[in-house]
């Protein structure tokens, strides 16, 4: 499906439009955000506060905050302990399909990339679920590429129902849906929705999403709100760091979460912090100016701005980085990860989305957490 003749800011006919002004607020703030305008004093002031203003948050994301990274880390560690104690949640993703109708230039699943495409049958999904459940995990994240045709809402719904038999928590990371479709998946057993905006710069967004439904920026932006209106317990936010100006993107992602939680105060809010990674047929794909230092700065700023929000640390990052950020700012870590379709139980059926940097098993990650004085938590929500 080629949709590059449509405006990236206009909804397509089947896309639900909800009443909200959050996108306008976030984009206005982001537009005005000038990371270079902050001084050391602004950063020091922010570090003295318990609850940060939006301006304080901007200061912590600015280059002026780089010399204060250690202080930010010390404060983040205290905040993380205050809100989460020593708990760190464990989960794993399961890719059930990698068909995709979008042409996103930075992603290994993009529809023009020649990779092995696959979609697991329900029997295959069940085998994968059993293999993962045997590791002791109780939370799973189901993922698909973004293809309504190949991986319909009904197909995902059946997969969620199966997953809910083996796992106490089921999250989904799929293409954005309408409210009623989220409600359906919630009734099937999913209660957490992750949608990443990739970049909040609408011009850049248009340039890197050449075709497919994903090209429509506002429909993606309001996915979290529709999910919450559809009864989901929580939602995750994130920008793909390195795609555009990462400071502006992280600033916008933080505000997106902030305003959404303000409007839906009961919602669980979390962040993911993906950086660009190499993928099949594009070994050069990389996070540009987002090195580990900058990634950590973003994670610490998220923690200090919204100290109650969960932060998930991806297997995109190396073990040494992941081990040190859990308990400091990250509160959730994946383990036993495959980003291919299937591959937990038998041979993988389809190619992976990106290269991972940390292939440790659940047992190994569990041992690492204990050794660091942290408490591995396999279940943190009871669905009643």
């Amino acid at each position, binding site marked *: 499906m080629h949709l590059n003749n449509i405006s990236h800011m206009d909804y397509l006919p089947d896309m639900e439009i909800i009443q909200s002004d959050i996108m306008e607020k976030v984009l206005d703030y982001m537009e005005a955000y000038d990371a270079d305008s902050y001084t050391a004093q602004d950063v020091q002031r922010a570090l003295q506060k318990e609850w940060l203003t939006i301006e304080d948050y901007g200061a912590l994301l600015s280059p002026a905050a780089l010399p204060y990274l250690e202080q930010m880390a010390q404060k983040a560690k205290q905040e993380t302990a205050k809100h989460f*104690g*020593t708990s760190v949640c464990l989960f794993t993703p399961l890719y059930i399909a990698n068909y995709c109708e979008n042409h996103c230039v930075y992603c290994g699943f993009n529809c023009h990339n020649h990779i092995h495409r696959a979609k697991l049958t329900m029997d295959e999904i069940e085998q994968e679920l059993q293999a993962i459940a045997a590791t*002791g995990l109780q939370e799973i994240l189901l993922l698909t590429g973004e293809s309504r045709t190949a991986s319909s809402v009904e197909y995902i719904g059946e997969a969620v129902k199966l997953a809910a038999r083996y796992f106490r928590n089921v999250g989904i990371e799929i293409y954005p849906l309408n409210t009623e479709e989220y409600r359906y998946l919630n009734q099937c057993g999913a209660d957490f929705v992750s949608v990443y905006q990739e970049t909040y710069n609408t011009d850049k967004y248009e340039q890197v999403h050449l075709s497919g439904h994903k090209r429509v920026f506002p429909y993606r932006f309001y996915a979290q709100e529709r999910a919450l209106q559809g009864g989901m317990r929580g939602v995750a936010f994130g920008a793909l760091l390195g795609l555009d100006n990462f400071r502006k993107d992280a600033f916008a992602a933080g505000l997106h979460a902030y305003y959404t939680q303000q409007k839906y105060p009961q919602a669980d809010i979390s962040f993911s912090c993906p950086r660009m990674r190499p993928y099949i047929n594009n070994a050069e794909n990389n996070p540009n100016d987002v090195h580990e230092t900058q990634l950590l700065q973003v994670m610490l700023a998220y923690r200090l701005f919204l100290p109650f929000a969960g932060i998930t640390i991806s297997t995109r990052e190396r073990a040494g980085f992941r081990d040190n950020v859990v308990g400091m700012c990250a509160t959730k870590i994946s383990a036993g990860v495959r980003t291919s379709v299937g591959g937990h139980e038998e041979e993988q059926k389809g190619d992976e989305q990106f290269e991972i940097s940390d292939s440790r098993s659940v047992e190994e990650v569990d041992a690492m957490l204990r050794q660091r*004085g942290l408490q*591995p*938590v396999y279940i943190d*929500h*009871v669905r009643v």
Partner: protein
Amino acid sequence: MEDKLILGGHTFDSRFILGSGKFSLDLVQAVAEQGGAQIITLALRRANEGGAENIMEYIPDGITLLPNTSGARTAEEALRIARLARAIGCGDFVKVEVIRDSKYLLPDNYETLKATEMLVREGFIVLPYMYPDLNVARALVDAGAAAVMPLAAPIGSNKGLATKEFIQILVDEIDLPIIVDAGIGRPSQACEAMEMGVDAIMANTAIATAGDVKQMASAFKLAIEAGRRGYLAGMGRVLHRQAEASSPLTGFLED
């Protein structure tokens, strides 16, 4: 006369209730021992049913479990979580937590009251966690709560008795045990609450985030005992700095 804490007809020597939600589980037993706690809360959302890490295995013998309904956003959800707790063998005690705010985690008093009414009808011993509001506390008494658990400050904040005046009102007016829950960050704050006449203290973050958790548990035990003894002894006169007026206001009296 023996000084006991009585909750729903059950008698306890210790006035220290230990929260378990923010600990590494293998520390719970040692912390309970050091703190002399006889009641430990248990977040049901963390309790596995046969999973890799079953929190109940870590609860020492002789300890009364106080399952909480954390994660509940409505009275209905609290009721269902409490039933689940009872079904997996946690007993009849339940601490009601109904929270519809993921930022400050402040309890929703309205839903808490509704949940208390429902749970009492099902025979639970109900300890509601609440924002210290006298009217709600009175309604909780009428609903059949076994105690009232007002917060001292936002949960996890370690800010101490930010709601001191309002907790004192509950101590003075409510004829049920008052257990201060949430916000107590230091042993001295626990001691101060006990001096006010509070019946027990619940603490979690203050201990879980301490440098030496066992030692901090022991410090809380001593502080709570000291505060209780001070309260029972009756506070002596505390002199204030202001000078008394030089010409007496009552000098006009003739008899």
